[in-house]
């Protein structure tokens, strides 16, 4: 970090400082990913043929997760049991950060999706939902005559 002894422009210096602060923060609190957007954390991506949703659902039995798609609105819901159940009277909880309880997340997706072409896989606590777009909505190359 190079700070000149005599800043020529106070505002430029403040601006630079603010940017540095922002950078520093982006690596600490939001790094947890989970606390920010609730449980489960979601990543959504799209390809020309489909929409891909990744839900991070550690410790949830895949069979108990409910996934529904209705008019372009996707709902992922379920319940996660607390890991702190069944504690003895002399047990001490030192850190308690993991989510416990019922969860429900709703995502609005585009309306060109085919509700009959949904696939969901769950592996290692990562639920991957793939929804195909309707054939008519897929981009077509138009030949010029």
């Amino acid at each position: 970090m190079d700070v000149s002894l005599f800043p020529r422009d106070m505002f430029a210096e403040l601006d630079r400082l603010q940017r540095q602060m922002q950078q520093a923060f982006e690596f600490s609190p939001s790094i947890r990913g989970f606390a920010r957007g609730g449980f489960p954390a979601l990543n959504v991506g799209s390809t020309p043929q489909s929409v891909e949703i990744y839900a991070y659902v550690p410790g949830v039995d895949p069979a108990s997760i409910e996934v529904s798609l209705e008019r372009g609105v996707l709902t992922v819901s379920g319940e996660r049991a607390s890991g702190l159940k069944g504690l003895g009277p002399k047990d001490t909880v030192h850190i308690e950060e993991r989510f416990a309880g019922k969860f429900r997340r709703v995502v609005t997706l585009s309306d060109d999706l085919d509700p009959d072409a949904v696939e969901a896989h769950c592996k290692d606590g990562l639920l991957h939902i793939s929804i195909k777009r309707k054939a008519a909505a897929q981009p077509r190359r138009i030949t010029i005559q």
Partner: protein
Amino acid sequence: MNESKLTREAPREAPALLPPVDVIEDAEGITLYADLPGVSKERLTVQVEADTLTLSGEMDLAMPQGMAATHAEVTLPGYRRVFTLSKELDAQKLSAELKNGVLKLRIGKVAHAQPRKVQIKVD
């Protein structure tokens, strides 16, 4: 053992997510649960070096080709968290279990550190 002593971020390494954990202590040892979704058994490392316990894992990210991210809450491909163990914990008595993306780690205490009830004599 207090929380500030148990948690510590790893210095100078590639940025990784800090997985949420639960740590419970009972008379015989400590149980740690860590959320590591997307990490398979092969990509998980649990390492004890002197009194430092390091958990690290890489996610299996098989994404379709040409996918553009439209919304991302998990922005890094791996997890790391470092803990300092206290003396009464025995690294030899360590067992790990990974299920549905949750790591359950059990660390036993050395025999002489387990609580003994002290008999109070009344004269």
